């Protein structure tokens, strides 16, 4: 099952299944298709999200997080 990254809750994990936006900055920061990630911070009032990929924390705006599809069917 796929969900938007922006819909994941605190502590949820998943695998990046796709990034819809064509021009984005995520690849170079380590967010790529097939990578496991964990939501570690979710700010209220449409605030940014922070995900943990390996040892690296990557923060992004909620708008960008809406473009990232996460496969949550398999437990990571």
């Amino acid at each position, binding site marked *: 099952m796929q969900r938007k990254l922006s819909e994941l809750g605190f502590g949820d994990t998943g695998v990046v299944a796709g990034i819809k936006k064509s021009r984005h*900055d995520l690849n*170079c*920061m*380590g967010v790529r298709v097939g990578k496991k990630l964990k939501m570690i911070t979710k700010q209220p009032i449409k605030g940014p999200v922070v995900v943990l990929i*390996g040892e690296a924390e990557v923060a992004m705006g909620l708008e960008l997080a809406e473009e990232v599809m996460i496969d949550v069917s398999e437990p990571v």
Partner: protein
Amino acid sequence: MEGNPGGDAGNGSTVLLIGNPNVGKSMLFNRLTGVNAVVSNYPGTTVDFTRGTLIMHKKTYEIIDVPGTYSLEAKDLAEEVAIKMLNEHRDGVVVVVLDATLIERGMYLLFEVIERGFSLVVALNMMDVAHDKQIAVDARRLQQILGVPVVPMTAISGEGVKDLIDILRKACVTDVMGIKSRLSGDAAETPAISGCTGCGRC
């Protein structure tokens, strides 16, 4: 003593420190030059470049501390500065500084530098933090695969900095196809660097 006609590392006199934000480029710059560049523990501290000089083995290097960038496609002004500095010093030596605890993230930028055909050395900074976090880094294997010198170091304590300086003249160009074939095991390992203890191409 400047200049090295026919040298194996471009003209070897300009050295650019390139890497992701917050990997310790400025700390390394201070170690190399004695200049007091502003260092802090958050990304984006360096927004403009700083120049300094290093004299080693009677050879003068101009060291340039470049703002951190995640890619060579500029997304902000600091990254534009980094890319401009690279374009202006195409014959210089690039030291790609990687955070040993976040090597994978730095690979994207490393490969962009490789693709552009720069003569380069990889500095694996923050080895002390990697030890603390129990992250094992096989610098020797990384060097064999990449085909360029990989130097494990810790800028904050100065460990490995001399190794890095000694290896600057061994900086070389590598290519993505070669790395790919070494990764898949198709190609023999580069004779110049196999059998080395991991400190460099000596």
